[in-house]
């Protein structure tokens, strides 16, 4: 119970500290989600229904990944630079809760963009969604894995390098990952890389959750994702616990 209370208090702290930029952050999230759908639509012209469904169900994944992979490490890098991380670490709060509260803040922030992205996609391409009952926990798993990977990156790398790497990762996610288009379009070697990376399973999971009539996720992909989630969360928690 204390853990939940402390997580919520920490989240409140982070939330309020960002309060000046909160509306802007939400707007940017919404923009990214909508832009992915509409922008890709422009790129591919008038897509056939399968391609359209791919695009519309890929957009929310992109939102979740950018929030986790970019926003979370940027916040961590910022708190490292301004010195608040070291102070927070002197508080009698279990280390894992810092991760949990940041995750909570960013997931909540990502939500409006994600929902709007789905709605805009469905309207723009005139597609029918079939939402699976487990969509919410699936979304949380994706969001948590992305944030944990981002957190681990920002913990290990010096702040300026961390923000460079995460910005590069956004391009990889946007253009070189089978999120908005099928994996078959990529060169074989890249397909093989994505068999072990977490991005494709994330996309598959969200896709299957949004349109369960059209897509499924294999047990293997789910396993890859869960392993990534565990390893990244463990690494992030270890980095938070580390003593110089």
């Amino acid at each position, binding site marked *: 119970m204390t853990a939940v209370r*402390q997580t919520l208090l920490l989240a409140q702290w982070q939330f309020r500290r960002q309060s000046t930029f909160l509306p802007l952050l939400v707007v940017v999230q919404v923009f990214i989600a909508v832009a992915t759908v509409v922008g890709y639509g422009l790129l591919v012209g008038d897509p056939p229904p399968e391609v359209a469904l791919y695009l519309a169900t890929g957009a929310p994944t992109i939102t979740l990944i950018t929030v986790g992979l970019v926003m979370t490490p940027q916040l961590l890098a910022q708190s490292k630079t301004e*010195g*608040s991380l070291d*102070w927070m670490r002197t*508080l009698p709060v279990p280390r894992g809760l810092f991760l949990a509260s940041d995750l909570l803040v960013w997931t909540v922030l990502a939500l409006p963009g994600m929902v709007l992205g789905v709605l805009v996609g469905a309207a723009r391409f005139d597609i029918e969604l079939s939402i699976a009952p487990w969509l919410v926990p699936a979304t949380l798993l994706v969001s948590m894995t992305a944030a944990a990977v981002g957190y681990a990156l920002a913990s290990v790398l010096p702040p300026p390098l961390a923000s460079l790497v995460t910005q590069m990762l956004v391009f990889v996610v946007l253009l070189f990952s089978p999120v908005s288009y099928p994996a078959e379009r990529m060169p074989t070697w890249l397909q093989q890389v994505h068999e072990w990376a977490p991005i494709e399973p994330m996309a598959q999971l969200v896709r299957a959750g949004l349109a369960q009539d059209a897509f499924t996720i294999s047990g293997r992909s789910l396993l890859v994702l869960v392993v990534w989630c565990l390893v990244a969360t463990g690494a992030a928690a270890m980095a938070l616990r580390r*003593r110089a």
Partner: protein
Amino acid sequence: MGQDEVLTVRGLRKRYRGRRGVQANDGIDLDVRAGQVVGLLGHNGAGKTTLVNQVVGLVLPDEGTIVLDGIDAVARPGQARARASIQAQANVPITGLTPRLAIELVGRLRGGERSAVRTRAGELIEALDLGPWADTRAEKVSGGIARLTAFAMTVVQPGRLVVLDEPTNDVDPVRRRLLWQQIRRLADEGAGVLLVTHNVREAERVVDRLAVLDHGVVLAAGTPAGLTASRQGTLTVELDLLPGATVTWPDGVVARGSSRLRESGSVPAEDAAEVVRWAQRQVHQGAIERYSLVPASLEDVYVELVEDERRDAPAEEVAA
């Protein structure tokens, strides 16, 4: 070791690795008891912050033990943290929050109950005269107010041990007095307070014990009276010169320091009357603007201790 021991540090050593490895702590022994304010003096780089960071488990010691309120702080940093509250040397950024909100949130994070924390935060704001800024966004408050806010955040729900790292920095003289009162009160209410400071003159009146740290070792420790005992019977005479004037000290005064328009020296107490007469003549002759005679201060002792250490240090560094 008594029941009321809050912090016991023995043989603490820490070396930071890297190309220019630094032996930050080189065998520190330190005790803080409940109800005591212990001052930790030392110049920049003496090893104070490293010591504090080991106590709260941000830095892992190479050697030595830290017992915090009965807990082995090296083996159980999490439990140790629950018993200590720290005001870091750097201000905690609280942009987006107001001082009151920041104080209350930290109090609740530290396990305080909502209404109790609110009451205590209100008391602290009152006691430190923060009222006019308490509900202003942190972006708009001055460095001194931010510093006092950080202090209040630390003591709103104090641990058994309270560590304050330079709490008076940037704080105006009036509020500094209020701050010292609060620090004294913390100890009187049962906490052990470890006070890291450069402000020897002001700390002298508040602390029960002092430890002087230099090059990662405790050079001297004791009560303020005990530390100045060697200088008892000696007074310090300070002169403010008029521009262009020079003075030659009378017999019996040992020159201590000299800067632009400022001279200081030490004089045995029995010769003090003679020196006062001399100084008064200098004032009449227009050589000095004013003078003062004060008991040998802790600051003098501190500077002497560290200078002695400096004199011995070079040989040691070559050997290392």
